[in-house]
């Protein structure tokens, strides 16, 4: 904790504070860290935290015990997660009744409760610490280094882990040009989707003539199912603020904004607390660390439109206008917010900056591939055993992410495709699973890095439906300003609808192709210009599924109603009569000891028999 009225007045001041923090760390102290990230909180971890706080209060022990709430650990599949110090003991799937036992046995008694440890499903081996779990040991955490460790509402926790050392170094010893050179040499590229070189962007803004200049952190994160930026802002808000402050110093800005969607209340709260705390201790505001550099940050809450994540839409929204994109023939670095030079960076991009400053461009550039450096956070979801938030070095293969971190596809099903890049990304099939996580490699495959969504699909996924799902999302999120996106997506959806309804016409694939081409070339913003990707990538790799729907009125994955039938496998049927009783339209006939039969004329394809059959004798054909 920082004493009231503490104000750091120089970089040296900050450094000596860190020293005192470290020396006062009691080696015998114990702590309970409860994850309150998105996944764990949804499973009730906030209540667990309260129970631990209560237990600490009531214990009356004179040893120091601390109950902390921390940001997302990433292993959401196994949440809520509780980590006990000393020993880094990693408990997963913790429930309320476990709290007294954990407190008594592990916190006070130092004994491990085996039942709560992670068990490797293939080897049956129990893991005591996170680094013994495959989900974690393939990962490399730079941006998420503090997640799961620090209390995001305590700036001293961040400072103790080396936070603000980057800003201190910049203010003490680097010119703006040196900062930009360092970031340029590191090879850092934007994590918000476009992959634009960050150093180049900063250089252009610094060189722009007009003033004032602005820096903006983009925390809008509108991709369905994504929670990378949310977890970062909730779990380590100060790293975003520090990165933004360094960006401001580099381009000569004294005012910054963080744009966060209002659906992320804890991101907003933790960021606000971190800003207030930084201001209180002199890391934001006038004359930061007596360097002469002044900078402050405001939070703006967005109403949740996907298109407000697009930089010009975001700026329009910040200015108080409808969040609609603007033409970008003159870039925001020249005319951005209120027509002034502005740098807008994704929050993950910014959170990389302090580490690059402290450890150096060479260190960062040594990670990853030739043109994609550092690490990338993904939210790994869909048909994998271990869903969650992962940070991996660039260059790792998709296969390792899916198989080693994700643990592969569950229930013995076949892997079919992995969708990367958010709603306007693409689906990568099994034959390209060895592709590396690299901006250019993913783009070549018809997908993209995007901001880091990763959805795994198995054999039961209909790829035409996948295309339709994302097209529908994008059509709903289109701002409607320009013709091709507004009208073209509606036409595409109309065709996709009829294909999945079994009414596809010969030539529909070609019609989709014509619309896709128009969409790639003509819309005003990148939402429209990338909106055909889901259709294009599924047509490229799964054309046979489109053809089966259109020419044979058949859905190979058996997901589209009306394009497959239910039949009872006579050999597997034990004639138990359950389906017969459950069928709401009396379409099933049969007697004792006689295999049952579905009357296809009566069947409405509701799927009840398929759900209820205890012998999985009902098949989709």
């Amino acid at each position: 904790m920082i004493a009231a009225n503490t104000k750091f007045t120089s970089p040296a001041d900050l450094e000596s504070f860190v020293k005192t923090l470290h020396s006062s760390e009691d080696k015998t102290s114990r702590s309970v860290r409860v994850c309150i990230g998105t996944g764990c909180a949804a499973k009730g971890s906030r209540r667990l935290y309260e129970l631990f706080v209560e237990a600490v209060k009531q214990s009356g022990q004179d040893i120091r015990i601390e109950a902390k709430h921390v940001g997302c650990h990433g292993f959401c599949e196994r949440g809520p997660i509780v980590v006990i110090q000393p020993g880094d003991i990693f408990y997963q799937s913790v429930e309320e009744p476990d709290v007294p036992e954990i407190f008594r046995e592990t916190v006070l008694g130092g004994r491990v409760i085996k039942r709560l440890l992670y068990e490797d499903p293939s080897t049956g081996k129990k893991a005591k610490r996170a680094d013994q779990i495959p989900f974690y040991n393939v990962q490399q955490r730079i941006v998420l280094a503090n997640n799961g460790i620090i209390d995001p509402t305590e700036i001293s926790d961040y400072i103790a882990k080396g936070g603000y050392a980057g800003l201190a170094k910049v203010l003490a010893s680097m010119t703006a040009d040196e900062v930009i050179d360092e970031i340029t040499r590191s090879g850092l590229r934007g994590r918000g989707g476009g992959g634009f070189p960050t150093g180049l962007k900063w250089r252009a803004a610094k060189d722009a003539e007009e003033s004032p200049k602005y820096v903006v952190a983009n925390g809008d994160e509108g991709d369905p199912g994504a929670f990378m930026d949310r977890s970062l802002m909730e779990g380590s808000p100060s790293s975003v603020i520090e990165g933004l402050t360094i960006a401001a110093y580099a381009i000569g800005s004294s005012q910054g904004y963080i744009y966060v969607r209002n659906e992320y209340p804890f991101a907003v709260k933790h960021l606000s607390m971190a800003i207030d705390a930084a201001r209180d201790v002199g890391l934001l505001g006038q004359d930061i660390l007596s360097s002469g550099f002044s900078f402050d940050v405001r939070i703006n809450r967005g109403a949740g439109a996907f298109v407000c994540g697009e930089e010009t839409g975001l700026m329009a929204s910040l200015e108080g206008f409808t969040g609609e994109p603007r033409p970008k023939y003159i870039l925001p670095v020249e005319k951005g917010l209120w027509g002034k030079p502005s740098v807008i960076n994704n929050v993950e991009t910014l959170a990389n900056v302090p580490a690059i400053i402290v450890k150096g461009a060479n260190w960062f550039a040594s990670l990853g591939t030739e043109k994609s450096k550092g690490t990338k956070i993904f939210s790994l979801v869909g048909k994998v055993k271990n869903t969650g938030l992962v940070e991996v070095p660039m260059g790792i293969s998709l296969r390792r992410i899916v198989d080693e971190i994700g643990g592969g596809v569950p229930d013995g099903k076949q892997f079919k495709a992995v969708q990367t890049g958010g709603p306007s990304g693409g689906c990568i099939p099994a034959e390209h699973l060895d592709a590396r996580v690299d901006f250019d490699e993913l783009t070549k495959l018809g997908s993209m890095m995007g901001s880091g969504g990763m959805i795994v699909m198995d054999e039961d996924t209909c790829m035409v439906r996948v295309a339709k799902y994302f097209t529908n999302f994008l059509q709903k999120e289109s701002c409607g300003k320009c013709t091709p996106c507004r009208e073209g997506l509606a036409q595409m959806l109309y065709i996709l609808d009829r294909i999945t309804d079994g009414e596809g016409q010969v030539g529909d694939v070609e019609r989709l192709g014509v619309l896709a081409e128009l969409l790639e070339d003509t819309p005003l913003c990148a939402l429209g210009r990338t909106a055909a990707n889901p259709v294009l990538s599924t047509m490229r790799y799964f054309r046979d599924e489109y053809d089966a729907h259109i020419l044979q009125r058949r859905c190979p994955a058996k997901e589209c109603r009306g394009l497959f039938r239910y039949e009872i496998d006579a050999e597997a049927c034990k004639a138990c009569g359950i389906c017969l009783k459950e069928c709401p339209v009396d379409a099933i006939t049969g007697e004792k000891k006689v295999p049952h039969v579905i009357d296809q004329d009566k069947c409405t394809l509701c799927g009840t028999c398929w759900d209820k059959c205890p012998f999985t004798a009902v098949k989709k054909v």
Partner: protein
Amino acid sequence: MPTVTIDGCKVEVDRDATVLDAAKKAGVWIPTLCYHSSVSITGACRICMVELDRGDWRQLITACNYPVRQDIVVYVSSERARKARCGIMELLLARSPESEELKALAEQMGVKGTPYPTVTESQRNCILCGLCVQVCEEIIGQAAISFAGRGVDKTVASPFRQASEDCIGCGACAAVCPVGTIKVRVHKDEREVEISPFKSRAKLLVCKNCGAPTVSIEVAEQALSRLDIDIEEFRQLMQFCPKCRRSQAAACLKSAVFDKKKNECAAG
């Protein structure tokens, strides 16, 4: 001054002039819909797409708002540019199938019809170019209408879709509407003007002489307050319809000339 080469024809324009400005200077026609020289440029309709040659790659740009900052080469009639413009037109035709103005433009562009069904109908025959919204706000200063909804549900509407009290019935929106969807209707009996489809109405002045409706009272008032002219004389003029004003003027003239002649005769 940068040079723009359009389909091989070279023209010089001021820095930050648009490709459309250059095309006009070169005498090359590029279709436009949401562009109007009196209001700010949004680049929304995308009908003016042309191809920009960047040396190692080519890119489609909107001519109406692409600023010329150095010598550039663009193609209006290239296959890719033409295909893009026609594609946009086909989508618009599906959206606004009944607009004669749109059909005429399509014909001028060589687009015969549309392969698409009408699937977006948030507002019939409106292409959402936004000129009406802009003119009402930027030129008239009333902002009586604006965009409502978004995406395919986007429409142009008055607040809460009720007749707007801010509408002064000037009809500027109808005048700029490129597809003829906004109409000015005069209700003679009620001495009112209606702007359709916004349902707003404004009271009209009627000619002192023949009783024909002239202009909305509010427009006359605003004109009087904004113009730097002899108000009394203007007020007098506004009391008559253009026709009566003309015949009055003619009568005046006639009497002046006739009287002069008579006087001359008498003198002679």
